[in-house]
């Protein structure tokens, strides 16, 4: 009996010994037991381990100690957000970390959509590929927006885009809305920018087919609807006017409307009239698909309204301020620290050319050779006159300036014929 029990016990020794050896072997292979709330290891961390040795000796075998951060990090933005929130991270910081992770996540997915093995595809196959690619990018763009919303984070500038000069300009032009509405508008703008980044490579050509026009209309209607939800009509008009000022007055180019001595009310009306030429700048800023030009008025269409607003004297001054010759001479005079009246004098001379050219024009058809010789002589004389006037400007610029002014005046005079 005792012998039987001993045999059984020895057999159990053997079994337990084998089981223990197997368990140790498994544990060593898996690197230790996992805890009850294991979070996925960071892909970035893993890749850093795998590419860690830049000398090419291979990845380090050193085990990385567990730190609070290593338990939080994840390549998946959703898991990262959950980990951070569970760890009591402030909500704004959660979003500050999650948004770049979302961008990286979707940059990787975008790369996967890339058209492999399609380099030499042509014709109808290329068209089909392009359309599939575009559809996939649009779906990806929707996914990205959906993920950001699901994570209850808004959009934000990327690291390299945080520019206080840009923000100051935004604040100057839209600060009247107050921080809440301004933030909502900025969110919309950044969302549209985010979409453009993903879908920008393969826009569907705007052919003007019925479905293209409908898609364009839907896009514009959606933008208008979103803007209506965010802003009152008066706020929209005001913001549109302010943004249009950037384009109309050419502020970035330094054209000075101050010389027109407009009141604040006149200034707004001036911009409103001019913006009829370019359309709504506010809508244009938000369009993810900038395919169709907005309906526009021409410069000739708006001139009567401008003349009525400014009166004859200021309108004539406005025409002069727009003249490319005047603008160029003014810029040169500023650079050479010459009196700004120089530009006016140049302009006056140039506009007087039409009267000088009239006799030459009338003889052109009857005797073109004679008229041509007269024109050449007249041209040389006017150039010399202007060069003398622009004496303070460096020689190369002076000659070029004078030539441009005279030749432009000649062509303009002939166009009026």
């Amino acid at each position, binding site marked *: 009996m005792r012998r039987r029990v001993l045999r059984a016990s020895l057999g159990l020794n053997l079994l337990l010994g084998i089981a223990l050896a197997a368990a140790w072997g498994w544990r060593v292979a898996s690197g230790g037991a996992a*805890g009850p709330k294991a979070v996925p290891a960071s892909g970035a961390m893993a890749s850093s381990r795998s590419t860690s040795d830049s000398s090419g000796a291979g990845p380090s075998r050193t085990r990385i100690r*567990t730190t609070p951060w290593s338990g939080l990090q994840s390549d998946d933005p959703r898991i990262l957000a959950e980990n951070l929130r569970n760890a*009591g991270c402030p909500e704004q910081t959660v979003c500050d970390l999650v948004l770049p992770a979302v961008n990286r996540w979707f940059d990787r997915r975008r790369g996967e959509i890339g058209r492999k093995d399609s380099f030499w595809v042509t014709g109808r196959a290329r*068209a089909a590929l392009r359309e599939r690619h575009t559809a996939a990018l649009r779906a990806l763009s929707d996914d990205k927006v959906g993920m950001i919303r699901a994570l209850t984070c808004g959009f934000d500038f990327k*690291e390299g885009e945080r520019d206080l*000069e840009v923000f100051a300009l935004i604040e100057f032009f839209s600060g009247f809305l107050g921080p809440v509405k301004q933030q909502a508008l900025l969110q919309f703008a950044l969302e549209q920018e985010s979409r453009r980044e993903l879908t920008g490579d393969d826009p569907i050509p705007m052919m003007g087919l019925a479905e293209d026009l409908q898609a364009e209309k839907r896009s514009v209607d959606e933008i208008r609807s979103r803007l209506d939800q965010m802003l009152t009509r008066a706020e929209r008009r005001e913001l549109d006017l302010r943004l249009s*000022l950037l384009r109309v007055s050419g502020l970035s180019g330094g054209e000075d409307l101050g010389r027109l001595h407009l009141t604040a009310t006149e200034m707004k009306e001036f911009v409103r009239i001019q913006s009829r030429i370019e359309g709504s700048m506010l809508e244009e800023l938000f369009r993810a698909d900038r395919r169709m030009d907005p309906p526009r008025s021409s410069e000739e269409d708006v001139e009567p309204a401008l003349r009525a607003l400014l009166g004859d004297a200021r309108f004539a001054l406005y025409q002069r301020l727009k003249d490319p010759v005047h603008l160029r001479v003014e810029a040169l005079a500023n650079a050479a620290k010459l009196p700004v009246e120089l530009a006016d004098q140049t302009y006056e001379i140039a506009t007087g050319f039409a009267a000088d050219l009239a006799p030459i024009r009338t003889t052109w058809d009857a005797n073109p050779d004679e008229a041509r010789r007269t024109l050449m002589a007249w041209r*040389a004389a006017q150039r010399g006159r202007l060069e003398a006037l622009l004496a303070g400007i460096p020689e190369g610029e002076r000659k070029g300036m004078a030539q441009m002014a005279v030749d432009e005046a000649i062509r303009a005079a002939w166009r009026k014929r």
Partner: protein
Amino acid sequence: MEETMTLRASLPASLALNLVLLLALALTFRPKPLELPLGVTQKVELQSGGRDQPATEGVESAAIPVASAPWNWSQLVQDPLPAYRDGLRAIGCPDPTIREILSPILFRQFQERCRRELAPWTTSFWERLSGGSQKTMDEFRAFSERLKQEHQRAQGDLLGRLSEASVVEPVGEDPAAQFMPADVQSAVQEASRRHQERIRDWANSPDGRGTNRAVVFAALEAQYAEELSNLIPADQAAEYQRRNSGHASLRLQEAMDLRESEMQAIVDLYDRTSQDANGSARTAGLKRLLGDDRAAEFERTQDPNYRQLSELGRRAGIPPEKTLDLWEAERSAENAVRELASNTNLPVDERESRMIGVRDSVSATAEGLLGARGISAWRHLRSDWLNGTFHVPPFDPLQDLPPAP
């Protein structure tokens, strides 16, 4: 007797061994807690994304306190920002991530300040600009520039010692390399990048403007070819070079179906032949490759107008032969307009009247070929052409004058 004694001793020993083995098995499968390593002062290695880096200069050994509860963010000192930065380092947060946390916080602080200081401006927007927009914008630019510089200084003070490495260093995809095995793609891309850099450096150097440019350029190309040959077989290197040719963009047309081998041969042909005065060498080569009709079709695909009509036809369900007829009608109209424009024997009014007739004729042709679905699209696509082409250009009296002395 002796055997009974041995048996009596062996059984308890075996039973005891069983107990020990069972205990050992139980300990092997016991789960470890997820909490921090406790009670030990340790130097935390900083991890910086894609590269091994030594601990950032200036980081001290951080004592991680004994904790009996899971770690919480509130344990970090979050104000002032330098303390926050140091605390993040202490918990093992990589430098690029510290930057991602603190940079927006600092930026928002400056945004608030910007709002406060610009508040008087935003409420007097039009008054300020009507008083002299240039002066106003100069003042505004001075303000924003000053604030930006302050922000950059503050950012440098706070984050300047952090690694500049990004969290993930994406490797840009090169479509030209995708046909190669994955393990050599990045090496080939790197070789290509180095080659471009050498060319750029040489071109910007004094030698780049010298007289032996062709010789130096050939040597650089030979060096690059050798580097490629060390990485990939000759046929792959040739294909990679072909894909990077300036003429590879010829493939980017959707108007004509070509086999891969045909497209590759066309690129090689264009690389070999220069564009002589009448393109005869290339045209002859194309005809040999594709035959006369298809060669003509390929040359048409290089015309953006033809491509546009072809795309319109494809989307509107119009047969290709009709879009070809329309394209030819447009070319004929342009030729007619050119002839009329230069025919100074006719008065301007007469010439313009005939031009309008040409325009109406091509529009009618388009309507007949494209039908209701396509004609409005065609008018949209061709609006600039229809409005701007069918006029006698204004006479330029300077056209034949000799240049100024």
